[in-house]
């Protein structure tokens, strides 16, 4: 067949349109193509030909093979949005498919690079936020990931794609992170052994911490440059004049701990929940020791609104000095420690109040649980906590 490039391009565009329309008319068409999940895309189209009973696919299938989808997109023949839509449908059948996710990320990258419109805009006090178009793309990806996660347990590919979108499309925008934290809460509570789902929550919290620490150091700089009076997070006026909306990190972490408690009590015997708890506890005490030096030197007299502890970011006075000492510990003499333990030793010791509460929680679980696995996990958690404070 001696067609010109343009003719081929037109044909292919029509193929994609036909396929998309076919799907739209009958979403279950893809179910009737009962194939092994590893089957390739050309086979998918071939199967659709069988179902849809049209011979146009046979001819075009060959052409499709000659022109990869990337080339089609780059040449402007295939609309990236349409390609994303097709990918979304493919994921309903093959929710894990690595190639589909990888290709999807490539397409998204094309979309944000190619456009002359900015992906991010400045909005008054809020600094830069994603443009509306970018927001829509992000929302769509969140939805696609959510659906794929529901179709296959602990769908690592779907969740890591979700993380990628937040990192590269949303640039870890704080508001989006917070929205994701609250919107995935219910899903997590209904998928208590989905490790990837809970890992996603850990990622969100970690990102919120890192984004806020960045803000704090910016705030600190502003602070030092301006008036001696400390800008308190509780001070509404002060908050409005800073770059980003204030978020209460310790409160968020507390909420997550409560969430974890609730789930562990309601659904005994799921290791994922206990793993999640370890991560949250680690984030909590890691956060406590991480606040910049200058802030800790302020005495209560400096802050008009209240005491140091009102800042929510620093634990009650005495524990802080204790934390500084631990920082200087040399552990090179100790052999045979795991990487995690070494890392933990470099961070300040967890505050004793937090540890005490955790031990009480473990006691409560052990005294009331009747599930063998639950008891095992509770004891393992206790052992882990003990290694933290050594």
């Amino acid at each position, binding site marked *: 067949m001696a067609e010109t490039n343009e003719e081929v391009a037109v044909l292919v565009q029509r193929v994609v349109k036909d396929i998309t329309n076919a799907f739209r008319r009958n979403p279950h068409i893809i179910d009737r193509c009962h194939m092994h999940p590893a089957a390739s895309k050309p086979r998918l189209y071939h199967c659709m030909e069988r179902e849809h009973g049209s011979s146009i696919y046979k001819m075009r299938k060959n052409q499709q093979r000659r022109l990869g989808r990337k080339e089609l997109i780059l040449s402007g023949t295939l609309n990236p949005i349409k390609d994303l839509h097709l990918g979304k449908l493919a994921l309903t059948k093959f929710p894990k498919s690595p190639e589909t996710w990888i290709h999807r990320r490539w397409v998204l990258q094309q979309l944000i690079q190619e456009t002359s419109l900015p992906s991010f805009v400045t909005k008054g006090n809020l600094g830069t936020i994603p443009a509306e178009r970018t927001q829509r793309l992000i929302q769509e990806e969140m939805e696609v990931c959510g659906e794929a996660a529901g179709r296959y347990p602990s769908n690592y590919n779907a969740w890591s794609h979700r993380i990628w979108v937040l990192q590269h499309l949303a640039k870890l925008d704080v508001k989006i992170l917070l929205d994701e934290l609250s919107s995935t809460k219910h899903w997590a509570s209904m*998928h208590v052994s989905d490790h990837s789902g809970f890992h996603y929550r850990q990622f969100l919290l970690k990102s919120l911490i890192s984004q806020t620490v960045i803000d704090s150091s910016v705030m600190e700089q502003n602070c030092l440059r301006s008036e001696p009076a400390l800008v308190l997070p509780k001070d509404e006026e002060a908050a409005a004049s800073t770059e980003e909306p204030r978020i209460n990190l310790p409160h968020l972490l507390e909420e997550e701990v409560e969430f974890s408690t609730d789930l562990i009590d309601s659904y005994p015997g799921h290791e994922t929940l206990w793993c999640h708890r370890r991560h949250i506890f680690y984030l909590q005490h890691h956060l406590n020791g991480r606040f910049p030096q200058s802030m800790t030197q302020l005495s209560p007299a400096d802050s008009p609104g209240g005491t140091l502890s009102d800042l929510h970011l620093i634990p009650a006075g005495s524990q802080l000095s204790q934390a500084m000492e631990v920082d200087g510990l040399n552990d090179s003499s100790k052999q045979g420690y795991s990487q995690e333990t070494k890392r933990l030793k470099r961070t300040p010791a967890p505050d004793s109040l937090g540890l005490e509460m955790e031990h009480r929680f473990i006691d409560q679980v052990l005294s009331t649980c009747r599930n063998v696995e639950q008891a095992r996990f509770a004891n393992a958690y206790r052992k882990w906590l003990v290694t933290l404070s050594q």
Partner: protein
Amino acid sequence: MKLYSLSVLYKGDAKVVLLKAAHDVSSFSFFQRSSVQEFMTFTSQLIVERSSKGTRASVKEQDYLCHVYVRNDSLAGVVIADNEYPSRVAFTLLEKVLDEFSKQVDRIDWPVGSPATINYTALEGHLSRYQNPREADPMTKVQAELDETKIILHNTMESLLERGEKLDDLVSKSEVLGTQSKAFYKTARKQNSCCAIM
């Protein structure tokens, strides 16, 4: 966490009779749904057959957990769930359903009943409501009267069978399973995953 089926059965002296069933196969692909439903019926009947009166058991098969309660009066209930669904709530549901069923349907009808003849319509509603265990049973966390230590745990379907009995034979002899389902089972078996629907 998910519930896939909820059935009420009668454990007769000669055989087990299915009285009423409700299914939620929406998470399975369109093509597989009728086979999945048949297998759940087959499994429910088999489990009741091999459980004694006055016992509760949980049978694990890959990612599924089948919870059964056979009352002393031979009325039985089976819930097929995934491995996230809390078993305590599953047994609460079974207790509730059998209690309600026994009040609405006359005992005389049990030994000879079938889904077509039995007049009990609440099953679908219960199945749907209990998809969210905390909404359906807010007292989940509270200690149930049920003594969980008395629940028999089977790690596979095979452990329910008699010595020498093979699941493959029971499947091929079954009246409940259609030809397509039996073929499906054979293929899945070859891939070393019984009823690997997911």
